[in-house]
């Protein structure tokens, strides 16, 4: 099992003919993801060659792309000024899961998009995120498939490359993953740590959860409050930005210490108070996970 995506995931790519959209569509197809349609306004009726023998139909609108393809998931690679509209278009077309990779979306645009998405009963992941992968089943977004492997660990993170770093170490240590979800580094986004923790809790095959947070906001603290109550599986944390100066934006739009609770120390303390061990170094995550797994997965998997 996995969370949010699996073999039944049928993807429409918004912005399929752009530089990033084209590159990552090919990567997704190569991984085995069912990419069933693409959208680029003005190029409807054309086809996108994703791999030898794989020509993906392009439509002008998401609604047209959904009709006849049964797409249930959208991934968005459109420029930042148009990304919120693309999110709302996908929700309006009945897409249940929307992943927005685009970075730099105006925050006010997102305040509208998140309301539109939730009123349509859809789930949004991102924006400014690497997407997600359920190793061996499906990947939607840009997480490199080869650093992941199937196994019992659920991973959720606000970061991209830091996620890859930790996933790579888990995989090399024989600790595969049910799903790895990048929720993105923006101040206003769709899916939260809390949502992912609850989903991993409900997922039969997930045995332990790794949560990689960073400075800014209080999403990590909200998630910590669930641990031991609604989330009974072991949770292991890491928080980036312990050396970040207050008031400065550290790359991600949401990674800024402003107001109460945004500092790394606040988050580490909240997690530790909730009984979540927090790794001091990325390399320590593996040992903390191993110590809390019901049984070593390396033995189980092979």
């Amino acid at each position, binding site marked *: 099992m996995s969370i949010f995506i699996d073999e039944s995931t049928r993807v429409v790519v918004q912005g399929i003919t752009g530089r990033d959209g084209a590159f990552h569509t090919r990567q997704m197809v190569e991984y085995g993801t069912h990419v069933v349609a693409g959208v680029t306004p003005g190029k409807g009726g054309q086809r996108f060659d994703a791999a030898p023998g794989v020509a993906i139909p392009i439509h002008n609108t998401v609604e047209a792309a959904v009709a006849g393809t049964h797409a249930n998931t959208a991934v968005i690679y459109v420029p930042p000024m148009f990304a919120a509209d693309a999110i709302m278009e996908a929700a309006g077309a009945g897409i249940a899961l929307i992943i927005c990779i685009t970075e730099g979306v105006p925050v006010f645009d997102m305040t509208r998009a998140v309301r539109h998405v939730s009123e349509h009963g859809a789930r949004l992941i991102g924006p400014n995120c690497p997407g997600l992968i359920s190793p061996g089943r499906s990947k939607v977004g840009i997480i490199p498939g080869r650093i992941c492997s199937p196994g019992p660990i659920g991973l959720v993170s606000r970061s991209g490359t830091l996620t890859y770093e930790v996933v790579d170490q888990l995989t090399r240590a024989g600790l595969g993953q049910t799903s790895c979800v990048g929720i993105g580094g923006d101040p*206003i986004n769709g899916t939260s740590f809390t949502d992912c923790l609850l989903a991993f809790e409900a997922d039969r095959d997930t045995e332990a959860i790794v949560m990689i947070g960073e400075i800014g906001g209080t999403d990590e603290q909200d998630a910590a409050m669930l641990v031991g109550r609604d989330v009974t599986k072991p949770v292991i944390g890491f928080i980036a930005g312990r050396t970040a100066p207050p008031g400065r934006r550290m790359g991600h739009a949401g990674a800024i210490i402003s107001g109460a609770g945004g500092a790394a120390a606040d988050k580490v303390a909240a997690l530790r108070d909730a009984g979540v061990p927090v790794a001091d170094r990325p390399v320590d995550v593996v040992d903390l996970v191993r110590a809390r797994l019901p049984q070593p997965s390396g033995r189980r998997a092979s």
Partner: protein
Amino acid sequence: MNLHEYQAKDLLRAAGLPMQPGEVASSAAEAEAIARRAGGPVVVKAQVHAGGRGKAGGVKLAATPADARAAAGAILGMSIKGLTVERVLVADATEIAEEAYVGIIMDRASKAPVVMVSAAGGMEIETVAATTPERVRRLAVDPRYGLLPYEAADLAWFLYPDAARARAATEILRRLYDAFVACGASLVELNPLVTRPDRTLVAVDAKMVIDENALARHPEIAALRDEQAEDPSETAARRANLTFVKLDGTVGCVVNGAGLAMATMDLVKFYGGEPANFLDIGGSSNPEKVVQALQIITADPRVRVILFNIFGGITRTDDVANGIVQALAAHPLTVPLVIRLTGTNDVEAVAILAAHGLSAMTEMDAAVRKAVALATTPVAA
């Protein structure tokens, strides 16, 4: 992006809000001329991106144009929290009967703009909220409707018991919300919003922060950025499309991805070093970006070692290796270099580096330890 008080006031005045009249000056003579035109007492205020200007001596009342000249002369060139004052705002002095606070922030928790008002003006709203929360009223706005008239009126009646001021404040709140949206702001504050002795309202100080992501829609606001107020290295980095924050340490860091960049800085500190900067070279690796990143970091004389930490997912590590080689050919380094790279095309990357006498490590932890050791050893090992 932070705006100066005078810039925020100009934008808000244009949006129809009652702002204290004033003009900006960069010399004592200009300040005197502005005060003469004003024809009455003025306040001379330092324009720097720092709070606590008053306590630092950066705000002075001047009764005459000659006093304004003297005040501007004293304030211009003064240093407030490490920032040199290049400009002063010369504003008409306002007689104050009462002070209120009105602000709008982009709130993560409610995923909406939140309007905050308090009759306790002139103080930091965080302090008021912490000590006397009953004196603050908050309202999360549905961004699809905007601030509705009755919502604005509700907040206005919370501030003022009399109809004249409540009506004026309702209009101020509606215009302020519209300006917040139109400018792509993430924060706007009128603090204090002053009641004059004649019961009219005027904003005596204003603060605005613009969402960096929205600047592409507002070139006229993007042009207001004060590059004198930031470190030259940060200006250079922004022009090169690099995300860079200057710090005080000795380990220069070049990393792909914001989270990994923060984790790298943290690990430098964990091993007893101090990071010289935050730098995210981004996902699409272009050798030219690496060249520019190295130039920016090596311009800091405190940097004693440069650490590359590249996890090639989307970033191709051979592109980064080419960038390193190009940068070194153009500008040979005087400090040691520690390179960690792994992931996409790392075999090619290692070969490129090796052909130029460079080596790369594969583990982040070991690379950071090595960089810290080099930065803290008296002479290069």
